[in-house]
């Protein structure tokens, strides 16, 4: 077997084994997005004006928001396991073995991508039960998965970089908590930016989450808006390259 895939495969298997043993993390990770959709969807749909969303079904509007929010959470948590590995000394064991340093990082990308894809499918499945059928069909679901994975990789890279930059795990969790909420609430995840006050709308339009959510939302509500989709995918690839470059610089300094 190719040594690179042998080591990367083994590391990726480890992340899945850990997830399967951490029952609570597994259950919350898979079903929390479903709760978002069901609970918040039910409470918000009566409090909002459907005309502002371009659809009469608030669940259909919110699905894209929940998809991107979920990837945001999983991606930003992507560095957590390595913080623990560093604290227990397990990371030193991995680094003392003859593996390519990148295999640890790539194994996290594979793990977070697979997890995000699974979460997205659960969300879309739940939405389907609420009569939300993506306008772009199966190919659209593929496109949503692609957008999700591209966003997840960049965020995971960012999280890994932060994990090595910030020395304590409590500091890391505080920072993640601090950036997650504004990224979600000052975006088009739960409400259309058109209904926001002008200043908030300006901020929301600067938030990359808004653009990603809008692209996924188009795939669910409207169909193939190619220009929008290509721009977002291009931007996400640029985001990934930027995050991976930045983080590998931090990691190289941290692990020699």
């Amino acid at each position, binding site marked *: 077997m190719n040594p690179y895939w042998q080591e990367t495969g083994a590391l990726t298997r480890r992340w899945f*084994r850990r997830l399967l043993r951490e029952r609570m993390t597994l259950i919350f990770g898979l079903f929390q997005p479903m709760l978002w959709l069901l609970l918040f969807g039910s409470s918000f749909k009566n409090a909002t004006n459907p005309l502002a969303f371009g659809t009469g079904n608030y669940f259909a509007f919110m699905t894209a928001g929940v998809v991107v929010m979920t990837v945001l959470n999983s991606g930003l948590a992507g560095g957590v396991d390595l913080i623990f590995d560093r604290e227990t000394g*397990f990371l030193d064991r991995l*680094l*003392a*073995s*003859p593996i390519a340093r990148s295999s640890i990082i790539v194994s996290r990308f594979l793990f977070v991508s697979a997890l995000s894809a699974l979460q997205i499918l659960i969300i879309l499945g739940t939405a389907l039960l609420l009569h939300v059928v993506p306008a772009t069909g199966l190919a659209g679901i593929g496109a949503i998965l692609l957008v999700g994975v591209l966003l997840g990789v960049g965020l995971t890279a960012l999280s890994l970089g932060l994990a090595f930059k910030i020395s304590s795990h409590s500091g890391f969790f505080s920072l993640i908590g601090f950036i997650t909420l504004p990224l979600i609430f000052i975006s088009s995840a739960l409400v259309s930016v058109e209904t926001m006050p002008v200043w908030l709308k300006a901020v929301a339009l600067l938030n990359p989450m808004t653009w990603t959510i809008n692209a996924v939302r188009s795939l669910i509500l409207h169909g193939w808006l190619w220009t929008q989709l290509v721009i977002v995918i291009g931007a996400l690839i640029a985001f990934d390259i930027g995050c991976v470059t930045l983080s590998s610089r931090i990691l190289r300094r941290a692990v020699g």
Partner: protein
Amino acid sequence: MTGMAGAVAIDISKLVKRYGSTAAVDGLDLTIQQGEVFGLLGPNGAGKTTTLKIMTTLLRPTSGTVTVLGHDVVADADAVRRLIGYVPQERAVDRLLTAREHLELFADLYHLSPAVAAPRIQEALRLVDLADRVNDPVGKFSGGMKKRVEIACGLLHDPKILFLDEPTLGLDVQSRSQVWNHIRQLKQRGMTVVINSNYLEEADQLCDRLAIIDRGRLRALGSPRELKRGLGGDIVTVSLEKAVAQPQQLRQALQAVAGVREVSVDGTSARLALARETGLSAIVEQVRQAGGELQAVHYTHPTLEEVFIHYTGHKIREEAIQ
């Protein structure tokens, strides 16, 4: 394996590792031979772990060179990693994985084929006496068992050199002697073992040679026996059935024995500080001639603790912390 004796396993030359303005390692020169159990002994913060991490490619030196079996730890890190096993100080296990899953993971990280890995995993588990607990998550294991899982992982790829950082820190007495036995077995197989310790009994019991390190520098080097002997100052205490009539005469007679540095006679006992190792028969003879009836003779070497204080000017630990 005896053919390897005398060959160099690790060569450390003018090693310096600086963090900002402080030097954790400050000009270290050291050669470790193949097949020996070598101990780096020093208090916490002496630079032992830093040195070990440089030898195991986990840290880069600020200056100086380290070669492991001829491979430079910086330029040829991957070759070094293939040849060494490393057991870090912390309980470096994944509490969610089973013992077998740990070994399977490391078999893949060392690129063993499944056909090679399977018997090695069995053997490693047998060596550390964990064969009956392979499928339990390691989180449920005692400290000693976790350490044995780590040692098994470090042995899987049949390394030429095994590094252990504080191998028995925080272990109970029984687990500690079990780990020591495993290390002795490895030495018998011809493996080179490098241990970091701030635990003097461990260094004394296990190591063929010791380097006493303090504040990033080498303070003394030798076998535990050489180091203790080198200090001189063996003490002979002679206990008598009853006090002699002429203690002053006895004192002078004992003082005249070759190798005796200082004598004090006090009632029923005489204490002799030796300048070098000295036979007991001349001492016994002098006591007899002075009319003393011998009850007991005690010969004590200086302890490694005294060696440590002699070379570093302080105790290895302020208090014995377990």
